């Protein structure tokens, strides 16, 4: 990866590329900071507007003030107590957790098998899994909808947690990622386990999984984010307000006759804020996870 050279050891990364350019270097840095600050500003302005509007009383919405003149918590009160938003929260959370747990387990297990086992049909099965990556989910929405309304088990999957979550309980990309990672698990370790009488599942659970935790962690975070923000399938798979997820609920705030901007901004704030906090706490992990998963693909 990064080659070790004297300049690398003695100087920090930023300075490394700037030896002997001190003259123009400060100019370059100055403009970098200036531009980056300006762009950062455009990145946060929409969030500030969203929050600011969520504290505006209804009569101030159509006025031209950026910040509320008479700030109020009435919108939060209304959204929490007089809409189904708390239920949408619960639903989003349940769906995201369920599918993340399932993805972590099954993707890791399948990745482990493809990395560490030889068996007849391995290649065709792996290809079968990977081809599903080529098919856009949009093509499957209509078949899934028909399958959900008349499934082999259960009366209907429409308006159930399973119905919202089922397309994403195992992912091909995750299996691929886990396979790459599990290939790094030393065979000697597994064989030693076998000699000690550890079961095959025990090898997965107690040897391979602990060694792959960083990758599993990254997979979990992305899967959780993806499910929390998922929109098109939950929109189709739910029809009753008490089963909506957050994005579906926010979309339904506006009706033919009415766009309650203050409530929409409040709902948006409530859906975005916890995620922002999580991201700020885990940012290093997430950013490294993206670089990791992204460059492998």
């Amino acid at each position, binding site marked *: 990866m990064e080659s070790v050279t004297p300049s690398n050891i003695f100087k920090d990364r930023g300075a490394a590329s700037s030896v002997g350019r001190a003259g123009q270097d400060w100019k370059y840095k100055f403009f970098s900071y200036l531009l980056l600050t300006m762009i950062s500003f455009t990145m946060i302005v929409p969030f500030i507007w969203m929050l600011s509007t969520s504290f505006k009383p209804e009569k101030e919405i*159509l006025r031209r003030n950026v910040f509320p003149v008479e700030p109020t918590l009435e919108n939060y009160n209304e959204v929490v107590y007089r809409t189904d938003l708390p239920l949408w929260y619960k639903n989003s959370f349940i769906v995201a957790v369920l599918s993340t747990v399932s993805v972590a387990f099954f993707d890791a297990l399948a990745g482990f098998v493809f990395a560490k086992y030889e068996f007849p049909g391995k290649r065709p099965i792996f290809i079968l899994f990977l081809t599903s990556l080529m098919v856009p989910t949009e093509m499957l929405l209509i078949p899934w*909808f*028909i399958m*959900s*309304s*008349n499934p082999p088990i259960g*009366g*209907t999957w*429409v308006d159930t947690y399973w119905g919202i979550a089922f397309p994403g309980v195992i992912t091909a990309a995750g299996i691929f990622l886990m396979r790459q990672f599990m290939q790094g698990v030393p065979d000697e370790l597994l064989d030693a386990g076998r000699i000690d009488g550890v079961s095959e599942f025990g090898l997965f659970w107690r040897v391979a999984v602990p060694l792959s935790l960083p990758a599993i962690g990254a997979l979990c975070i992305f899967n959780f984010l993806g499910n929390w923000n998922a929109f098109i399938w939950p929109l*189709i798979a739910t*029809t*009753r*307000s*008490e089963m909506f997820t957050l994005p579906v609920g926010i979309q*339904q705030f506006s*009706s*033919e*006759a*009415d*766009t309650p*901007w203050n409530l929409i901004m409040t709902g948006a704030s409530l859906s975005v804020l916890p995620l922002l906090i999580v991201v700020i706490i885990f940012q290093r992990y997430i950013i490294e996870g993206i670089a990791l998963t992204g460059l492998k693909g």
Partner: protein
Amino acid sequence: MRKLLAILALGVIVLSLGAVAGAQDDMVEIEYWQYNFGARVDAMNMLIEQFEAENPGIKVVHNSDIPYADFRTELAASAPAGVGPDVVTLFYGWIPAFVDAGYLVPLPEDPFSEEFILETFSPMVANSKFEGSYWAIPTAVRSLALFWNKDIFEAAGLDPESPPATLDDVVEMALATTVYDGDMQDVLSITQQGHAPALASQDHHWFREVLIRQYGGAPYSDDGRTVTYNSEEGCAAFSWLAAFETEHVTGSNDILDGATNAFVNGESAIHVDGSFRVGTIARNNPDLNYGVAELPVGPNGEQHTFGSYWTHGITRRANDDPARLEAAVKFLQFITTPEAGTLWVNNVGELPAQLSAASDEMILADPILGPFSAGLAYSHATFFVDESAQRQVLIDAFDNIRLGGMDPCEALDEAAALEQELIDNFWADRE
């Protein structure tokens, strides 16, 4: 041994079939679905309670959880599984599509004979007759009327108690009540609208069934299969409507959060809408000082309005089981009586579909409901084959004028061709 088992099994089957049949004799359960609209749900719950008291053998399961936007999707999700409603409430403009899919069955001649329907119900109900059968029957109907903001009228020096009576009045009063920010008299500078044409809400109906007729034209041929609004008269009517935005610059649906919201929020002087908007105002801006009047008369002195209704049909599912079908017909009969219509107007604010209830003196004298009710006598309901697509055609034509600078007659020609294609495709599939 094997024979004995077979006989036993047969016996069990016969017995259980008997038990099922017996249970059905005792109690028939039917499902009724409508979309979630608070006042209508409450009114229907009252009707169901009365119905069940009168018919102890029938239980009606009322599903009203589904929001408007998802209602048809949910019906579609229930159909392949063979579940869903026995009686369903649909917008009248959707009926042809549901008939086309084989989802609805015709109303039985007994008790819903054509004679009975024609003499009992508002004439617009005939719109649900199609290929020789009636497919649905409503409890209540709605019509369009003119809303005006009395405070804005007063501030502009107009008489707050005289709403526009003619189309010329509308233009004049709209101009008098429009306020701009600064010197620029363009759409984006308007801070208070005189009148904003909004095809996406009710103005496409106003144009289709009212303005064209008032300019001496006709929107469709008598059998509803040919578009005729791309005439000289249609073009004059469309130009009149478009001029509010392009020429008089008294408003636009793009600003102030849409024409409907602008009126509800007290930022628009004149607005055409249905009786259902009364409830929106009561909820969102109860202090609004407004009045309701019959739609203004046109150049030919005629009065017209557009009528529409949510209407109840019987599904294929009910038809598959004689006991449920019988119960469904009974229920349908019960919720379309004049008594049901009266209960409806008192709780929902929609007008009774039955002639006897609609000509009620109390309703006509009501300052808000009266103008809508008066309109029932001269109302027209469009025969839509695909209401949302046909509406979109006119929205696009209007946008072509105001956004694309197209000539109104040309835009209307294009719309007529597109709408004709929709109608032709529908009938081509049927034949």
